[in-house]
């Protein structure tokens, strides 16, 4: 009664997972689907390290109860690159702009950036800051990250 099978699409691929009701999408992605690109930071919806895109909207996977992910389309950081070597333009921009230090915030930061650019292809500085306001970084001081998002926006023409 406290467990159930859910069906969800992750990065275009259909998955079935037998989940405990008292688990979250983050638990399912990392522990059951072995997609460890999405990070567990605060596990409380504050830091954004667990940001994934669910049905087109960036959300904190640590706040999504497992059952709520049933029937949904999820994109994680693994879904951005093509295979192991071809990076998404946003990932490339992060590398080129020096926006990655320890890298722990990076997957969540990039998912937020992707969601932002999908909605607004040419964001202003202020709009970038608002777009990543739910993602904390302890290393970089954010400047290079903001430059990387703007550079990625330029790339897409």
């Amino acid at each position, binding site marked *: *009664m*406290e467990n*159930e099978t859910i069906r969800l699409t992750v990065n275009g691929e259909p998955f079935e997972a037998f989940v*405990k*009701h*008292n*688990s*979250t999408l983050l638990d399912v992605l990392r522990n059951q689907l072995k997609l460890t690109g999405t990070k567990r930071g605060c*596990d*409380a*919806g*504050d830091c*954004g390290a667990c*940001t994934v895109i*669910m049905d087109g*909207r*960036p*959300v*904190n996977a*640590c*706040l*999504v*109860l*497992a*059952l*709520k992910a049933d029937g949904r389309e999820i994109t994680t950081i693994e879904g951005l690159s093509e295979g192991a070597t071809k990076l998404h333009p946003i990932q490339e921009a992060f590398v080129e702009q020096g926006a990655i230090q320890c890298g722990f915030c990076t997957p969540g930061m990039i998912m*937020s950036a992707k*969601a*932002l650019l999908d909605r607004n292809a040419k964001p202003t500085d202020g709009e970038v*800051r*608002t*777009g990543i*306001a*739910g*993602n904390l970084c302890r290393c970089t001081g954010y400047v290079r990250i903001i430059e990387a998002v703007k550079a990625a926006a330029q790339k897409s023409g």
Partner: protein
Amino acid sequence: MRMRKFVHLKPKTLQEASSLLSQYSGDAKMIAGGTELVNRMKGRLITPEYVIDITYIPGLNKIAYDEKSGLTIGALCPLSDIEFSALVSKKHDALARAVHTIGSVQVRNLGTIGGNLCNAAPSADSAPILIGLDARAMIFGPAGERVIELKHFFIGPGATVLKSNEILVGLEVPNPAPHSAATYLKQSLRRAMGLAIVGVAVVLSLAPDGSIADIRIVLGAVAPTPIRAVKAEAMVRGKKLDGKLIGQAAKVASDESEPISDIRSSKEYRKDIVEVLTGRAIQQTLEQALKTL
């Protein structure tokens, strides 16, 4: 820590949801977006055995408008739906902007307007502006539906008039009065992901001669619930505003507030900021309203 084991129920109708809430009573909690609830469960502040997920009930996440009743907003609308709704921006832009101050992009995509109101934090950012706009809350219960004015919805920190088997289903926001404008200003420790240490909503309408036909000044985060600064309102109602009168009204609003000191701010600072933001909000709203004359 790990959430305690629970059964996640997905009622398909309001009646079913209300029955489950009655049936499981103290062992159940209602969930919408979960941005508050999941955290509390992880911290074991609450340990429900049953989580009653009302997001599978159709029809509660719509935003609609009609000439007579105004704007209707379903309680299950994610905050981002309200933030980006063309309809809300057109009819009550201040509401869209108030909702934008809540949490972060990610939180607003999951969290709902109903959740923001029903969690009833004294600092809830959607409350002051909705109270200022004379919004009404539509509530479903075993006895049927009832509608109450939102200003009567909150009874204390974390507490609303909802009985344990009642569900907030939506909000009605009446049409704005002619020559009116609205503003919500939030003071917080950071530009996102912060609770308001003071929130001030001002909604006012002008008479043809530019005097104040009616006004609402609603303060958040400075009392156990959002409150109307009724003395400050009475001071300016019917008058033509100038800087001096606005300043006096702002001081009265500050005197009406009852903030506490907590980890975010002191009561003295909050009182000061009520005065500053009230003055600023009245000024900004007045300027917007004057443009409509």
